[in-house]
């Protein structure tokens, strides 16, 4: 399995914006991302396609910022496939993204704690 965080992307971020700043940015992401996953589930249940797409879009954008490329790819598939695509899989695709998020979050914590 690929690393949850692409080190090249992450180190580049630290280099251009500073280590302390990236620490704060990771904290913000870890606070916001679970809400995006919840948003997706809720939007799926309510059939709100716009909200679903927006939440997947935000998760994709943020994941790629930190080099969480696998998570980014899963979120992108959700964004492009939209609510219909997610419904077909009975929400399994969101669970998959959720699990990948947990893996990325723990890797990011390790990286910023170091």
């Amino acid at each position, binding site marked *: 399995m690929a690393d949850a965080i692409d080190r090249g992307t992450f180190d580049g971020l630290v280099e*251009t914006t500073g280590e302390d700043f990236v620490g704060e*940015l990771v904290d*913000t992401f870890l606070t*916001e991302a679970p809400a995006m996953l919840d948003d997706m589930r809720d939007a799926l249940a309510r059939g709100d396609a716009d909200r679903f797409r927006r939440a997947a*879009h*935000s998760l994709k*954008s*943020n994941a*790629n*910022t930190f080099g969480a490329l696998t998570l980014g790819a899963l979120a992108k598939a959700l964004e492009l496939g939209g609510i219909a695509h997610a419904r077909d899989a009975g929400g399994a695709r969101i669970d998959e993204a959720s699990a990948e998020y947990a893996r990325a979050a723990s890797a990011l914590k390790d990286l910023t704690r170091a």
Partner: protein
Amino acid sequence: MHDSHGARLLLVDDNKVNRLLLARTLELAGHRVSAAENGRVALAMLRKDGYDLLLLDIEMPEMDGFQVLEQVRGDLALRDVPVIVTSSLEGLDNVVRCIELGAEDYLTKPVNPVLLKARIGASLEKKRLRDQQKELVRRFAAPEVAQDLQQSGFALGGKRVRASVLFADIRGFTPIAEAQPPEETIDLLNTYYTLMFDAVAGHGGIVSHIAGDGLMAIFGAPVPLANHADAAVRAALDMIEMMDLFNVERRGVDKPEIRIGVGVASGEMVAGYTGTNERATYTCIGDVVNLAARLEQHTKEARRAILMDAATRETLSPSLAPDPLGAVTLRGKTQPVDVFAL
């Protein structure tokens, strides 16, 4: 004027991580950054504080980036603010749509800081050049014409309008100019024009030409004016009054008095840009314009300061009651016209 550093940027993104990261990147590049979390808030901030550049996300709740672009381009006060779209929206059609809506550039998130810096620098430089051009237009054209240019763009040709035209000229200017050093004549003309421009602008008109000691002003184009004839005649009265005050000053320093003649005519004419694509001027063309010029010339013979045609006389407010001078055959005209004097 500003250089690309220390510019005031407004960044709009609904996502907190993106907002923090972009703000950090821009601040490290030396810019001052404000942030908004949706399009509605961003527009309010743009209208309230003026920014040098807008960094715009597309996918946002309440008002998305496309709607912001439409509003910005439709707003005269905002349309010159360069917009760089930063988005991770999928699909080339979205990029095309942004550019068509007037975005200066489109950067995909995560945004490369070096690229971002270069694009911001280029956009600010373009804006600086545009600002400079606007400043030049402002200096050499009436504000109304400058605004008309900004709104409708430049195109040779005209459209029919109902308006009033005013010609003013200094009586016996040549002997005055000959009797004094040219520097003094320049000073005299500059004072004279300052007073005349004030009188014209004070009544909603624009000065379209100045030549030597004469000027032509238009009332009712490019911006329509409810009672253009009344406005033109009142401007003429202001001119005379201003010259009277100016002459009090001149008598005090033993200088000859300055007398002016003013002609006003009203009716339908063609207003627009004449010249070439390289060099053009906003003006009005038509019989009415010639008539105003002839009336101004006739002030010498009539020994009256202000002359006007019947069309102007018709719509004057009752407080202005000009004297009828009867039908006069003006120089260059075959038919006599009714002339009125104030």
